[in-house]
């Protein structure tokens, strides 16, 4: 149970670190990269394939093209990075304390690594079915 003083610190501390230039630029850069890869992703999945949305067999075949697994892994890393940096920006609007922000930072790094590991495992699993 948090005491009133510590709760106040969580939301009102003034000596705090937030979204520095590097993280801000990372968010902008990942967003920019995301647009390019996402357009390919949307077009392939919603416009090109007959009937809309790829079937399992079509996905396995699609992944046999040499550059697709690499592109999908880059897409995964960029989208997870952008999502977590964006979510962190929203949380910063709620003015968390440095202590709480540190917990958020560590949690987000772990969540990001877990999501990317899971995604890479999935790409390898799809490749192995080809």
């Amino acid at each position, binding site marked *: 149970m948090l005491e*009133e003083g510590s*709760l*106040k610190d969580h*939301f*009102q501390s003034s000596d705090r670190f937030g979204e520095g230039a590097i993280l801000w630029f990372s968010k*902008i850069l990942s*967003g*920019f990269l*995301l*647009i390019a890869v*996402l357009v390919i992703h*949307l077009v392939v999945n*919603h*416009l090109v394939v*007959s*009937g*809309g*949305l*790829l*079937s*399992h*067999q079509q*996905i396995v075949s699609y992944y046999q093209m040499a550059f697709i697994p690499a592109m999908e892994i880059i897409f995964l890393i960029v*989208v*997870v990075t952008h*999502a977590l940096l*964006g*979510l962190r920006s*929203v949380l910063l*609007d*709620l*003015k968390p304390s440095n202590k709480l922000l540190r917990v958020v930072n560590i949690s987000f790094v772990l969540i990001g690594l877990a*999501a990317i590991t*899971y*995604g890479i495992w*999935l790409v390898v*699993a*799809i490749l192995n*079915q080809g």
Partner: protein
Amino acid sequence: MSEQTPKAVNWMKWFDPRSRGVGMWAFIINRLSGLGLVLYLVLHLIMLGKLAKGPQAYDQFIAMMKTPFWIAGELLVVAAVFIHGLNGVRIILTSFGIGGDRQKQLFLIIMLVAGAAVIFFAWKMFAHAGGG
């Protein structure tokens, strides 16, 4: 605890539509579409796990996703992608000093482009569902 009340009220103001300028609407729309896309990303990654379970599990799921209800849901995601993505381009441009004095016009233009893109995708996606 009384010190917390003003902050909670500030947070709730996100959902207060009164006295909003175009810039604030752009900010709110960007935040909400971003949060929606994060939620979708989580669900999308979990759902893609069906690919590892084999054709039957995945194709059964995809058959459900081709029904009008789920296509409408997916169209919301497409709308969020275009709104968030194009709004992001506007933010990049203005952050680097391009079009800073034309932010309102830029926002209205990207909303129109996003609207046109959503209509195009809706036409294609529902045509696929109808066998077109």
